[in-house]
């Protein structure tokens, strides 16, 4: 189990960071996912761990997304502007290198991360799981808890949006 977690933790962090745009939240998400896998599924076979972990990770990201949305709604309702700003949004607005640039130390990587961050969550998840993690449509559907048709639609839309956004950078 330790070897599996050590192999997967960096990618898991990158997926979580691109989803939430914040280092601390991303680390919390990864730790939650690891905890759930270890305490609930460590007795399963090693072949079952990757799909289980991805499913847990995606669910934890969705939960975090919902919590953030509720928090932001309440902040708007009470007229508070004291919320923690998203690191990725700061980067997008700023011309100075932000935390993402510092962590990746590569402008092209940052550009891709920002483009992915601004995709709808489902498109972002479908793209990362299919294009980066190399999961099949069926495995991606299981990880995202949705149908295979939805995965194909989200993936296709994600590629279309990314190519439009990044075309000028990557042509």
């Amino acid at each position: 189990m330790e070897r599996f977690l050590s192999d997967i933790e960096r990618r898991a962090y990158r997926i979580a960071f691109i989803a939430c745009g914040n280092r601390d939240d991303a680390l919390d998400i990864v730790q939650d996912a690891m905890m759930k896998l270890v305490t609930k599924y460590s007795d399963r076979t090693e072949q079952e761990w990757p799909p289980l972990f991805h499913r847990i990770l995606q669910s934890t990201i969705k939960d975090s997304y919902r919590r953030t949305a509720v928090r932001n709604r309440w902040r708007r309702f009470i007229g508070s502007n004291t919320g923690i700003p998203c690191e990725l949004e700061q980067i997008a607005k700023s011309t100075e290198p932000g935390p993402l640039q510092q962590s990746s130390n590569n402008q092209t990587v940052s550009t891709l991360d920002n483009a992915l961050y601004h995709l709808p969550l489902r498109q972002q998840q479908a793209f990362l799981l299919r294009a980066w993690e190399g999961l099949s449509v069926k495995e991606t559907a299981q990880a995202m808890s949705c149908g295979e048709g939805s995965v194909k639609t989200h993936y296709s839309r994600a590629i279309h949006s990314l190519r439009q956004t990044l075309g000028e950078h990557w042509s």
Partner: protein
Amino acid sequence: MKPENDTGNNETTFIKHAATRLDQGEQQLDSTILRQLRLSRDAALNAKNQHNTWAVSAGLASTAALVLLTVSLWNMPIFQNHASSLLDDIELLSAADDLEFYQELEFYLWLDEKQHNS
């Protein structure tokens, strides 16, 4: 057909390019994040041990509680009174002798006393 192939090739190239960039991002994570991830991993693995310890402790505690409850009930007066008659009944039921022997027990005791006196 050719434009469709070109589109497909462009898409494949785009995806490979994106995957390479994402790999680079993974390789370039700073030492602070790597340390935090290691700590998270250790915490998760320790949580499993704590979870197991807790499960064993809970099992032992529930067994101990059950034993304590049984002993307490057994020592209650109402159970004590019934317990002695219950033991007599068990002795009667498990006896190999004929049941009539016990029914005529008083007669045999009287006969024995009579013979002893004479």
